[in-house]
């Protein structure tokens, strides 16, 4: 369970969600580590997961304290795999291992009681009855969380300890140093006898506990799965997420995303006093092109879409009011990849490597390809051809592709075109104050929503306009304007 590599999120938004999950127990963390996106063939099991998640969300919406009790149990849960390994290997286990197993069994019994009483009755989670383990480790009538090798385990142990007690009080009372030394030697002898007998008791306890190892392991795994499920539900409730509608990968029906939110970006905006404009878009089977003004939020829109698709495939509810998607075999994000550049690749080299990966993925199944400003790093005349080729390639691939681009004149038969609505009021005066303030006013007047275009698109020429608003150096602007045709100036 510890050798498995952690899932590496495709989108930064998913990495943010996973990092913020409320998971405390080592079993929950193991379940999170084992998390992998569902593929097209896993449709039935992912649907089952959503049925269960919806059930938990329903319960949690009725009861604001719903997560409190299991949460406090998960906080105290320790990983006992090592102790169980020793038990299974037939080793004589020590007192700390027995305390560990007892603590685990008590907490799991608590968790089972809570779960049974909650009425959740999920088909994937059915804790094994382990009351007998608690009874073995708690021979007393009163249930205590501590552990000791109780006198009740062995008559001989009881006798040895009684004799030890007598000797120790005799030592305390003895005035004669010679006699006291003698008594001390006797005590040492009896301490050894006690140790030997304790060791037999531990061996016997191990023998009685061994048949329970599989059930204890199973309960640990189930606790982890339950914790992950509750963590998913907690996010869904906190952010009013919606259950995705899943379609078979080969349905060719469009992906429909209404009012998507990117919680990471929304939180950053909120801290500056701004709101996040929900994104709505529909992706056809084939290629969808997205254009829009600079600073119009194309990248955020793409990342938000990819994040939600990835979340759905990981069994999470999504940050949207409605989200219908085919269950993809892959989600591929081609966006500015700082990591490749850091590893010494040129930006174009990095893009070509990602392209090679994408073409291989497309041949392996139906997926979602999200490409932000593809071929931005080469010259525009060649870049345009690269984008045209990618669009055509995706159009016939059977996958779902979206390409955000600044290049004019891309024409792909059957492709859908979307555009950022853009600046609300082009003639408004934005000047005054420093550039950051102007930038802020500009953002406030940007309509980040996406609109579907009826025919082919035309790339909006907003760059000159925005540079003018931002009061870039006049000499530079004069040179720049010289290169625009008169009607664009």
């Amino acid at each position, binding site marked *: 369970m510890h050798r498995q590599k952690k899932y590496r999120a495709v989108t930064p938004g998913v990495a943010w969600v996973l990092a913020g999950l409320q998971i405390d127990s080592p079993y929950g963390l193991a379940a999170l580590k084992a998390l992998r996106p569902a593929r097209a063939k896993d449709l039935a099991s992912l649907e089952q997961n959503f049925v269960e998640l919806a059930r938990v969300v329903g319960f949690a919406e009725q009861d604001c304290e719903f997560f409190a009790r299991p949460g406090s149990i998960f906080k105290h849960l320790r990983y006992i795999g090592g102790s169980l390994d020793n038990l299974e290997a037939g080793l004589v286990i020590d*007192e700390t291992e027995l*305390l560990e197993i007892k603590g685990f069994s008590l907490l799991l019994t608590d968790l089972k009681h809570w779960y049974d009483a909650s009425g959740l009755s999920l088909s994937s989670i059915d804790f094994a009855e382990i009351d007998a383990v608690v009874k073995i480790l708690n021979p007393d009538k009163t249930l205590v*969380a501590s552990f000791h090798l109780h006198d009740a385990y062995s008559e001989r142990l009881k006798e040895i300890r009684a004799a030890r007690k007598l000797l120790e009080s005799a030592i305390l009372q003895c005035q004669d140093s010679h006699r006291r030394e003698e008594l001390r030697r006797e005590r040492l002898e009896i*301490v050894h006898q006690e140790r030997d007998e304790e060791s037999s008791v531990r061996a016997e306890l191990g023998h009685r506990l061994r048949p329970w190892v599989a059930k204890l392991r199973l309960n640990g795994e189930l606790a982890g799965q339950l914790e992950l499920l509750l963590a998913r539900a907690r996010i869904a409730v906190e952010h009013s997420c919606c259950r995705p509608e899943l379609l078979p990968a080969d349905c060719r029906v469009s992906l429909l995303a209404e009012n998507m939110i990117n919680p990471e970006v929304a939180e950053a905006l909120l801290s500056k006093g701004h709101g996040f404009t929900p994104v709505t878009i529909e992706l056809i089977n084939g290629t969808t092109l997205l254009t829009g003004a600079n600073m119009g939020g194309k990248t955020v829109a793409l990342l938000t879409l990819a994040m939600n698709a990835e979340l759905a495939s990981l069994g999470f509810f999504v940050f949207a009011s409605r989200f219908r998607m085919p269950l993809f075999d892959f989600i591929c994000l081609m966006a500015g990849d700082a990591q490749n550049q850091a590893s010494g690749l040129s930006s174009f080299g990095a893009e070509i490597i990602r392209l090679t990966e994408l073409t291989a993925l497309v041949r392996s199944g139906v997926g979602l390809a999200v490409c932000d400003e593809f071929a931005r790093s080469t010259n525009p005349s060649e870049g345009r051809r690269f984008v045209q080729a990618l669009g055509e390639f995706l159009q016939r691939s059977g996958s779902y592709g979206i390409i955000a681009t600044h290049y004019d004149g891309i024409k792909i038969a059957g492709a859908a075109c979307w555009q950022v609505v853009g600046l609300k009021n082009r003639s408004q005066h934005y000047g005054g104050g420093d550039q950051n303030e102007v930038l802020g006013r500009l953002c406030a007047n940007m309509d980040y929503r996406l609109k579907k275009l009826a025919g082919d698109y035309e790339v909006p020429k907003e760059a000159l306009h925005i540079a003018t608003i931002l009061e870039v150096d006049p000499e530079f602007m004069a040179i720049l304007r010289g290169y625009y045709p008169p009607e664009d100036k």
Partner: protein
Amino acid sequence: MGRSLAECVDNCRCVAIIGMEKNAGKTTVLNYLLGRRLPLIHAITSIGYDGEDTDQVTGTDKPAIYVGCGTLVATASGLLGACDFTRELLRFTDFHTPMGEVVILRALSDGYAQIAGPSTTVQMSALVEMLHRAGAERVYIDGAAARKSTAALSTSDACILATGASFSHNIEETVEQTRHYVELLTLPRFEPGLPAGVPTDNINDCLIFSGDGTLVNSCSALDDQCAELIAARNGESTCVMVRGAFTQRLAQRLLDKCRQLGWLRLVGEDGTRLLISASQKSEMMRRGCNLQVLNRVNLCAVTVNPVSPAGLVFDSGDLCRRLARTISLPVFDVLAGQQMFV
């Protein structure tokens, strides 16, 4: 004849026993205190690892800690095999030492204990709190040798200092250094305390305030530039707070630069962080420096071990009387009939 050592810590919930040096008799004092069959639930833990049969530094035989039935013990799981009392395991603590995680036990019989506890202040405070919650009415912390006892001192509400022949072969030197150390530990408290909102990073641990309490500079107390920054205030009322170590080097540079120190109030985090020599301390005070601490240690007694590991034996009565004359605290030799010298 006045109070006994046990009476000196009568109302304390957490008592740290620290030594001037190794073999200063900390364990003997602990055993004496644990051996008082008081109607109190005792608990014991240690800063790091102590309680081994042979002192790992000097190779001499050491007394083992002997706990009574009912005592709570916080020690590393790897040392359970070396503890010979019958026990109940109460809980894990999540504090890990090189000898395993610290667990809390309750002794169900008398017996010898090997104790290793956490060594950071944060963990020690949390552990003491756990012991209290587990029912301990008084917690003893077996502290380390003097300079390394910060964690014990900042957690406890009372402290016993063990000193003796192991510190120096010269009885006068032992008495003098003990007096110096007692003075550092019991320097008066800086009453206003740490001003709110001052930076508390570990690098810039020396904070320089003007007379009206404005932070004018901060730097690392280990940086040679530190003395310059302090000396630059020469003549203007200044309060310097050192949250890390105030070293002999820094003290000497300051003495070299300033003939008068009447303008300076020097506040250490606690006495253990002031690593200055006795002569530096008296010279600084002679020049008018006002030495204070943020946390004053409630030092309630000094104990002596007249025997050094090298075989040197001081006259116990003589050592106790000399100490009692120089410091205003009760002095005990717990092996010599627990008498008190004041």
